[in-house]
């Protein structure tokens, strides 16, 4: 247990991605089976144990701590597992403690009472760090700043493999992954995914740059809208359906309606997950209500109905289409969709165009809320994992910009720690006493060079009016031209609006703060972008 506890401790206090990868790699190479497999499970899909840690801990803690003191401690520490780990009485014999496998086996079977007693004995044999690690292990979601994708990437790097080779089979594997480790160490063949639905690493697009255009020929490309949802992959086989994010995280548990929609299919398809009501795409904010959830209520299903707009087909029945061209996959997708018509889906329509100039007109007139821009896909592109050069491009709709005034600055982390690199900015409105006041509309931490960061940092230190921990309030004296993709109504922001993807476009050292925008102007923009729901170029929404 000590090595695993040291790993979690290290991950929890390290900000650097490289260092996290190194810590994970060292652990995966050095630890033995099946412990390292259980550790991998804890950091990715969770352990196959279903225990109510809360109930077990309530029974155990009441034996040695007064409930009032427990509650005060829990409130102060902010984390149940850590509170219990710290409060648990230290025993003289605490040391290496049990293996991960012993812990998993003890939690995997028996009555709640038996498992509670077993947990008590395990905690008795550990020091505070070990106790914390055990509680994190069986509590699920250790929250040590490691995504499932990062854990798999570190695993691949530790054994000099391509992470996509792991992703390819990942969802067919089961903890503690001994077949996976055997293959990684060269002691066995690559595990066969068999008949389970698995994630296929997705193909991604490059943003198109000005100097790309002359090199491209319009007739080589197919265009379609880029939707403002999240990229998903649906993998269905033998009645089992999984939906993955583009990182390969299984998000299907919170989308039962999509699982049923594909229950009859055998396919792997890419598309955009959206919330859609009466054929109209809801704002991204609505989709966010459905994301990052472990359960879903009937009310959520009703109020935020999910929908998948499909745009690629990787497998159909057991035929792998990835080596065929985009055009031919598209033809197969259309034919397949007509034949099966899975509910809650439609196809992302292609946008016809004669020339890039004509396409530019279409692109620049698209103001529909659900559209982020256009995708250009080379007609002969085969489906390859990752961001392959020159194949797919994303052409984001021209950003909107606003001149805002910097209000607060916060220290960054990692490379930028000690620099003030996160900026909250606002626009003017009339205050209660007839004076103009600033009201925040967004926060951005990108879009400037390292040199500009230094200049901004200097300006902030010289113009600080108040300090709250890592945050400084500054006097209203610096105009930031902020670019963003869209404005949304927001009840969370005092101003009533929120920006989507805000970033610093230019620093207007020259412009007086008093000439920055007003909230009135911003509200008028918000009105405009929602008042024109459908441009001619928008696709029909009648395929459902």
């Amino acid at each position, binding site marked *: 247990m000590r090595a695993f506890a040291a790993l979690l401790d290290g991950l*929890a*206090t*390290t*900000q650097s991605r490289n260092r996290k990868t190194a810590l994970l790699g060292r652990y995966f190479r050095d630890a033995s089976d099946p412990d390292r497999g259980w550790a991998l499970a804890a950091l990715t899909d969770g352990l196959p144990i279903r225990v109510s840690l809360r109930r077990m801990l309530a029974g155990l803690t009441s034996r040695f*701590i*007064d409930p*009032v*003191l427990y509650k*005060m*401690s829990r409130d*102060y*520490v*902010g*984390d149940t597992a*850590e*509170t219990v780990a*710290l*409060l648990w009485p*230290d025993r003289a014999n605490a040391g290496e403690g049990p293996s991960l496998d012993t812990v998993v086996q003890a939690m995997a079977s028996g009555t709640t009472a038996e498992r509670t007693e077993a947990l008590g004995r395990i905690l008795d044999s550990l020091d505070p760090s070990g106790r*914390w690690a055990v509680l994190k292990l069986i509590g699920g979601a250790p929250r040590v700043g490691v995504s499932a994708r990062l854990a798999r990437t570190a695993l691949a790097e530790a054994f000099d493999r391509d992470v996509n080779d792991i992703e390819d089979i990942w969802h067919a594997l089961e903890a503690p992954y001994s077949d996976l480790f055997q293959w990684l160490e060269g002691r066995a063949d690559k595990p066969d995914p068999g008949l389970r639905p698995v994630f296929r690493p997705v193909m991604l697009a490059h943003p198109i740059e000005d100097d790309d255009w002359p090199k491209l020929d319009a007739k080589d490309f197919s265009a379609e809208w880029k939707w403002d949802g999240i990229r998903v992959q649906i993998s269905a086989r033998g009645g089992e359906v999984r939906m993955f994010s583009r990182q390969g995280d299984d998000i299907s548990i919170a989308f039962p309606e999509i699982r049923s929609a594909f229950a009859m299919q055998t396919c792997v398809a890419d598309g955009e997950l959206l919330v859609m009501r009466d054929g109209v795409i809801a704002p991204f904010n609505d989709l966010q209500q459905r994301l990052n959830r472990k359960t879903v209520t009937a009310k959520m299903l009703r109020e935020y109905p999910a929908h998948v707009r499909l745009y690629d087909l990787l497998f159909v029945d057991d035929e792998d289409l990835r080596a065929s061209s985009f055009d031919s996959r598209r033809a197969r997708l259309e034919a397949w969709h007509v034949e099966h018509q899975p509910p809650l889906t439609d196809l992302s329509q292609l946008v016809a165009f004669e020339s890039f100039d004509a396409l530019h007109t279409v692109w620049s007139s698209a103001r529909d809320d659900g559209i982020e821009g256009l995708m250009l896909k080379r007609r002969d592109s085969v489906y390859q994992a990752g961001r392959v050069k020159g194949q797919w491009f994303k052409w984001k709709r021209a950003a909107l910009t606003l001149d805002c005034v910097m209000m607060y600055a916060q*220290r960054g*982390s990692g490379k930028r*720690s*000690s620099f003030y690199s996160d900026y909250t900015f606002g626009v003017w409105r009339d205050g209660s006493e007839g004076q103009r006041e600033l009201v925040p509309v967004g926060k951005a931490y990108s879009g400037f060079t390292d040199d500009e960061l230094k200049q901004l940092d200097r300006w902030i230190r010289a113009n600080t009016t108040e300090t709250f921990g*890592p945050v400084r309030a500054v006097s209203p004296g610096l105009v930031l031209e902020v670019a963003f993709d869209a404005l949304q109504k927001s009840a969370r922001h005092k101003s009533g609006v929120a920006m989507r993807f805000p970033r610093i476009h230019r620093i207007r050292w020259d412009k007086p703060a008093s000439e920055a925008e007003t909230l009135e102007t911003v509200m008028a923009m918000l009105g405009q972008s929602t008042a024109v729901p459908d441009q001619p170029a928008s696709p029909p929404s009648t395929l459902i």
Partner: protein
Amino acid sequence: MAQSVERWLYPTEHGLFCEPGGFYIDPHRPVDRAIITHGHGDHARSGHGAVLATPETIAIMKVRYGETCAGAFQSLALREPITMNGVEVSLAPAGHILGSAQIVMTWAGRRAVVSGDYKRASDPTCEAFELVPCDVFVTEATFGLPVFRHEVAANEVHKLFRSMAAEQSRTHLIGAYGLGKCQRMIRLIRDAGYDKPIYLHGAMVALTHLYQQLGIALGDVRPVAHEDPKAFVGGIVLCPPSAIGDRWSRRFNDPVSVFASGWMRIRGRARQRGVELPLVVSDHADWPELIATIQETSAGEIWVTHGREDALVYHLSTLGITARALKLVGRDDDEDA
């Protein structure tokens, strides 16, 4: 006839006041006569008419605030009783930092002890805490929650050495409170056998030199300024906790940020501060020390000052010990403890 202590020792807007003695203890505003428990900024302030304290505390105040930071100084050695307007006063070691003392007051048949900040764990830079039986014991509660159980400091230093062995190309930048913790860390590192130079942030130099003058051996300590940046690689630098995130720290290439504090027992605290290597080393009593000390004094009444007094007062009540929170203004929450 014994008189209830709260009739002659009570909080005022200037601080805790001993009425028959005519003096305040650790007042946070300037007063005519003050007795100071120890040199930390929230206990020792400048501008008093007369200050009574241990010789070490007076020396520390003079370094921090200047020779004339009080109208007059009277130094009193530990365990030497004097009488102030009929109140018998003596100082007992508190084990917190160099010069730290508990104020023992006896009047009208009752004894009160104001402990200031204290700890029971061993500390090679100051005299160990001495228990004084009393009727009223005034205690701090900085770590007044049962989750706080400090580690053995020497083990934490070994944790530092293990990290240094694993990260030989990086500088270990240790955030530590500039008075007491800084010098204790240096001494612990020396006692563990490290004899290379240890580098200091400018704000720590004067007090560290004072410790050395007062007889605490700290070995080769050097200011960071003017040193060749190469000297820090693989080495140890001490700085105030706030300097770790400040521009000052940019001179070190990718340092390991270390923080030596009792708060480091809580992972969230370490993460909030971006601390890579938390060391649980504290100059305050942890929960078991607080409870044990309070019980050992056999005091009939406990007054709890700054910190998490709610939990301590509650717990003492369940043990049948009379306790109440004493609201003193101007006391820090000791974020860097």
